């Protein structure tokens, strides 16, 4: 069995990538993907924790987290679509009507 800390370590890695992606990428879809990466890191952590503590709730948490991530994507894409229909772009840098 893989040591849970490796799993968690992968999680840290994914988290960093996700966070980095979230504020470096302009394309909204990619930002959304980056956020998904963070959520995946969360899942890995829960799994690692569950394995480490021998606790079933971690698995349950993971299942819920996946569901949440899915819902989030759905909503995100819907909002992006609405944005696209208004702004005709999904680049976050070009949507700057509201500022200051």
């Amino acid at each position: 069995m893989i040591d849970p800390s490796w799993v968690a370590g992968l999680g840290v890695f994914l988290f960093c990538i996700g966070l980095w992606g979230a504020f470096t990428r302009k394309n909204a879809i990619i930002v959304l993907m980056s956020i998904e990466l963070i959520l995946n890191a969360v899942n890995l952590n829960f799994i690692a924790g569950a394995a480490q503590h021998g606790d079933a709730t971690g698995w349950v948490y993971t299942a819920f987290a996946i569901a949440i991530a899915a819902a989030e994507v759905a909503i995100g894409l819907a909002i992006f679509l609405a944005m696209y229909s208004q702004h005709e772009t999904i680049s976050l840098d070009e949507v700057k009507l509201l500022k200051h």
Partner: protein
Amino acid sequence: MEASELAILIPVLPILAMPVILFLGQLFNGNAKWKGFWKEGGTIATAVMAIVFLLSLWLIVGHVSAFSEGNGDDVVTDVGNWVSYQLFTEHGDMKVQELGFGMQLDHVSVMLLFVASFLCLLICIFSLGYMNTDEVNENRNHRFYGEFVLFCAGMFGMVLADNFLWLFIFWEIMGLCSYLLIGFYYERPSASYAAKKAFLTTRVGDIFLFVGLLIMHAEFGSWDFAVVFNAANIGAADAGLIKAMLLLMFIGAVGKSAQFPLHVWLPDAMEGPTPVSALIHAATMVNAGLYLVARMFPFFAAPAMAGELGDVALLIAMIGGITAFMAAAIAFVQKDIKKVLAYSTMSQLAYIFTGLGAALWFVNNGHDELAFFAFGASMFHLFNHAMAKGMLFMASGSVIHEMHHAHHHLEQSEDGHDEDDDHHFDAQDMDNMGGLASRMPITAIAMAAGSASIIGIPLIGGFWSKEGIVGSAWKAVMYDGGGLFIIPAILVLLTAGMTGFYMSRMWFMTFAGKPKTEVAANVEETTPFIPIPLVTLTFMTLGGILFAGLNFAGWLGENSTHLSLSHAPSHLWHEITHAFLALGSDGQMDPFILIITWTTILLSMVIGPFYAMSLYGGKLAKGQKAHWSIAWIITLSGRIHSTYKFDNSIWAESGLSTALRNRLYFDQWYDSLMLKIVVPFSYAAAWFDRRIIDGVIKGIETGSQEASRNIRSLTTGSARDYIMMAALGTLALFLLIWGVA
């Protein structure tokens, strides 16, 4: 009913009359009957003044007779409590203190009360003629009478007050009325300016008096004469502070009595109507300072202060001497008849200060008898001067009034008259007068009597007191080690001669010679009411000899003596021998004082008038006749004028003369002090307030707006930036937690 029970009415009646007059005046302004019978309030004012005079007379007679019967005492009437409070003393306990109003009657206050009420009444009558016949004053005479009665109330209150606080309160009320009345013709810039100047200058003095009173309160815990003059209390007080207190109070007196260096307001105060000048700026208010200094007597007399307060006395005499000399010198060159009188007032008041200084000096050094003499002489001079000067001003008012009328008359008769001319003609300028003796006999006689009194022509009013003052000053030098007293002594001696000159000059320029203008030739003495006070006061002035006979000066000097008619002839003899032969109290002739006496008489009676005659005298125009009583003077002056011709052009064109015409530049200095220093400083302060203090507040405002802009510019609008900021914030959070945990 005791007179003292009604005494409270003396100040209160006029105070109540003021709103009545003002209210009715505002109500009936322009009404014919109001102008006619009511004289725009003048009738009410006169009635009130008459009542007050009768009340005062009652009071005075009661006082004098009580003393004559040997059971007299200073009457102190407690009228009521004003405010009460508690004081916290150094010993850690509290004491209840009450400030009440009460009235005190002693010889000095009785004398001043008489002077005030008598002159107030006379001048009020004078005003009926003077004010109500001048159309400049039409429809606003009620203001004059309202302020006039208020002033009278202030004077009576000040004289009667039994404590220094109320003295001060009424003192200030007089100041206010002085301001209001000088500024009666408020539309004239010069009057408005003069009023402000008078108020401010006297107020400078007043605050020193005020601080002095604060010290008095701290030292005695009270302002009541009864407490303050108690020798034991004075003994318990701190000598240094008492000295400071007296000095401060003296500064107040200097301001009020227009002494050097706070004298600048008095000449300008002549902007007011002439009755005002007569009443306030000659006869009554300016005496307030003297009264105050006279009231300081017990401090100098207190055993605990013996020898301690000589400096103060010397200073008082010194200021007196300087002012006397300076004012007389300035009076030499004045053309305005009222200005001459104003400077004369200053000069004469200064005499009294010198006399008082000597009296205080004596009493402080333990020479009570000399002190009482000097004190009595000073107070007597106050009396004489008030009577004479009040009359002189009224007489000058008469001249001015008639000049004005004549001018007006001429103007109307001349067709196509240029209206601007009106402003060029100065009814007060003596260069426009001349030869009026025949056209205004009453005025001329009155003025001659008044001038004689002021000059100190022997046996006439002022002579008796002036001699005493000069003599006292020299005695202080001679017998009491007052080395520096030599300065005021010499100054007052010289001033005696100068007085002779400028008073004569004024009289001759006005009444002698030929009319210098057409206006002067057409003057008629017709205005009603004016002669009444002139005649009355002429007798009063000439009656100085009676007062001298009554030992009036002695009575004033020492509270224990009393007036007695039966001893009058012997007293008169006593006075005459003393005055002319310089007999001391022991009956021995004092040769030195004799010299001084006769020098004074010579200077004032002979040399001064002689020069004046030679320069300004002259016979009347042909066909004009003066009254016999003055005709000889004019004739004499014409002789001297034609015989002795002095070339005074060197003096007249010298720098000294220019300086005197410019009043020794005091006004310029004070003005430039105000305009170049105080006003710019205040503008700078206003700038500082707006730019710096408020600038900080505004800076905070603009700064926060700036900060707001900067902060909001961080909200770039890009979601990526938001996330980045959040991430950075997270990092910062970690670091913070790390640092602490």
